[in-house]
């Protein structure tokens, strides 16, 4: 009697093991990629539908070279910039829709929430659109990789460069949520380390239309640099209205701490010229980036890619290579594999993913061209400096990520 009772679970275990090996560890036979992004609000140009296009291009390119014959599907959804919507979508995808990995997720608050859900479910999350450096710091998990950029990198690139050229007093205009706080904090410490001083700050709600009263406060502070610790539509409106109130003419400089190609396009060179900022990708860098970007634009209604779009492409490509190499789409195992394999793609070149989940690559300090310097559509940036990969991101030891052995 005792013997029979024991044997039933054993049989099941054996069956489960057998079926596992038979399907080569790909759950339900399909690798399902979820692009979770802002489809309807201020970040939908810098990520949004373009991120889905980028993910599909990555799948297309992967299938051209892969011999594994994987079945791959791409789905997408709108997180509406709400952390609760984002995490419940992630939960639903993992639990009932067999999504294996989530990509993109602009908006740091949503990214942190999705990262927590992903860890709980043991899936994979590669953030290409979000900014907060906490994703690879105190909130790092074995299931999350942070791909394109982060607040430390932006602060380090732009902050250092501006203090060096004389911008030693700062006033911050900060978006009042996880991302803005993180970006402001990082820039604050970079400015202080470089010998500058922060004379004031004001925090505005996400998605603000009118910045004039905040700009007036910045103007009254007499700071040499007004740091815009915001993104997307908020940055565009800040820059536009700063011009209206004669801030740059009055001798103060604007530092866009996070500026995307789509923002510059929306502003027009007339308003954006001279703006200095840090990014990890620009479409017009070399033949490979140009070829890819033109292909992307053709599929994205003529709009050129931002660094987030490039990041999604590169991240999906590397993820699929890791799935192929590891012969599994198990989240934890695939993320480990992604850290083990060196990265290589036409957009970011060769790189690697560190133990804390930080993808590293060179980043660039760009300046927006004058209207007279722009020769063809989307000819917007010139490179002021290149920051090598090993200096571009926060040193591994400084992040206090529990995954890093000390």
């Amino acid at each position, binding site marked *: 009697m005792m013997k029979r009772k024991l044997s039933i679970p054993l049989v099941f275990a054996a069956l489960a093991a057998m079926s596992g090996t038979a399907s080569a560890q790909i759950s339900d036979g399909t690798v399902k990629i979820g692009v979770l992004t802002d489809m*309807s*609000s*201020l*970040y*939908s*140009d*810098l990520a*949004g539908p373009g991120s889905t296009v980028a993910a599909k291009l990555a799948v297309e390119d992967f299938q051209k070279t892969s011999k594994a014959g994987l079945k791959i599907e791409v789905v997408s959804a709108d997180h509406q910039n709400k952390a609760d919507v984002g995490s419940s979508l992630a939960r639903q995808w993992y639990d009932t829709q067999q999504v294996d990995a989530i990509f993109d997720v602009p908006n740091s608050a949503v990214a942190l929430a999705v990262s927590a859900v992903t860890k709980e479910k043991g899936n994979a999350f590669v953030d290409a659109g979000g900014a907060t450096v906490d994703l690879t710091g105190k909130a790092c998990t074995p299931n999350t990789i942070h791909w394109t950029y982060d607040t430390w990198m932006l602060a380090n690139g732009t902050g250092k460069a501006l203090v060096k050229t004389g911008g030693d007093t700062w006033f911050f205009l900060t978006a*009042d949520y996880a991302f803005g706080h993180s970006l402001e904090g990082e820039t604050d410490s970079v400015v202080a380390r470089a010998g500058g001083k922060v004379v004031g700050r*004001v*925090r*505005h*709600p996400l*998605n*603000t*239309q*009118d910045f*004039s*009263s*905040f700009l*007036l*406060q910045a*103007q*009254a502070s007499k700071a040499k640099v007004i740091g815009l610790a915001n993104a*997307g*539509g908020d940055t*565009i*409106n800040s820059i*536009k*209205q700063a011009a*209206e*109130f*004669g801030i740059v003419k*009055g001798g103060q400089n604007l530092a866009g701490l996070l500026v995307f190609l*789509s*923002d510059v*396009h*929306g*502003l*027009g060179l*007339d*308003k954006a010229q001279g703006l200095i900022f840090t990014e990890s990708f620009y479409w017009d860098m070399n033949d490979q980036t140009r070829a890819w970007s033109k292909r992307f634009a053709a599929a994205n209604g003529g*709009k050129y890619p931002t660094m987030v779009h490039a990041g999604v492409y590169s991240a999906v490509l590397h993820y699929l290579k890791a799935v192929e190499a590891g012969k599994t789409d198990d989240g934890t195992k695939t993320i480990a594999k992604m850290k083990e394999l060196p990265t290589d793609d036409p957009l970011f070149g060769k790189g690697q993913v560190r133990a804390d989940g930080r993808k590293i690559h060179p980043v660039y300090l760009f300046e927006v061209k004058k209207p007279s310097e722009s020769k063809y559509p989307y000819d917007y940036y010139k490179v002021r400096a290149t920051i090598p990969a090993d200096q571009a991101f926060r040193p591994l030891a400084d992040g206090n990520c529990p995954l890093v052995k000390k």
Partner: protein
Amino acid sequence: MEIFGVPTQALFGQLLIGLINGSFYALLSLGLAVIFGLLNIINFAHGAQYMLGAFTAFLLLNKAPALGLPALGYWWSLVLAPVIVGAIGVVIERLMLKQLYKLDHLYGLLLTFGLALIIEGVFRNEFGSSGQPYPIPEQLTGGQNLGFMFLPNYRAWVIVASLAICLSTWYLIERTKLGGYLRAATENPTLVQAFGINVPRMITLTYGLGVGLAALGGVMAAPIYQVSPQMGADLIIVVFAVVVIGGMGSILGSIVTGFGLGLVEGLTKVFYPEASNTVIFVIMAIVLMIKPAGLFGVQK
């Protein structure tokens, strides 16, 4: 001199900015109040119609040449955009809203809300979310140094223009014979019809007027903000709060509350910026508790 650690000079600047934002609130809530007060429709598409006004200005300037027309600038748009968008409003009223007058308010609200979502979705699909630039008209570039702040000429124009429009609309509806007919028609349409006045046509034109006011607000906003598909969605919630605080349907109420709340919001941006997008709703809650019909509303 300082008030709570803020120099009075800076405070004056902030109050002026508040007044400028208030003039947009007043202009938009005015249109809503006209439509609600005279037609009993809660026009949730108001934000989308404001956005359409801005986009019409943008298209007249940038896309008209492609159709062989001359590029029409700001001043033309100020006249044409309200007419064009108002005409679209008339079509909406004739084809859709007319069917709903017999039903509960809720149906009109749902219909206009749905329309707003569709219009905004179409524009987002076409133009993206970053918005399109629209230049400040040449005559109004630059600004004045008032000593306590730098006032861009365009913003000064916005205050003046919006005050003038608000007051003349109020005068038209509350003090003229035509306004009298309108108000009578909402009280008792059958009787007014019996006097030989074409009530349905008057109602259609009133909706067109309200929508035209929204579009006018959109044209005035275009040079300040990006012309973007969600510009109206961001504003409409606040504007509804303004109308509720002022008293649903009260025209004077919406004007006074619009400017007043602009000022309050301006002050909040100085003393506690984090609360600047909630302060209006806090006031709304308080007003509704004390005076459920709103500050200028009449309890029915």
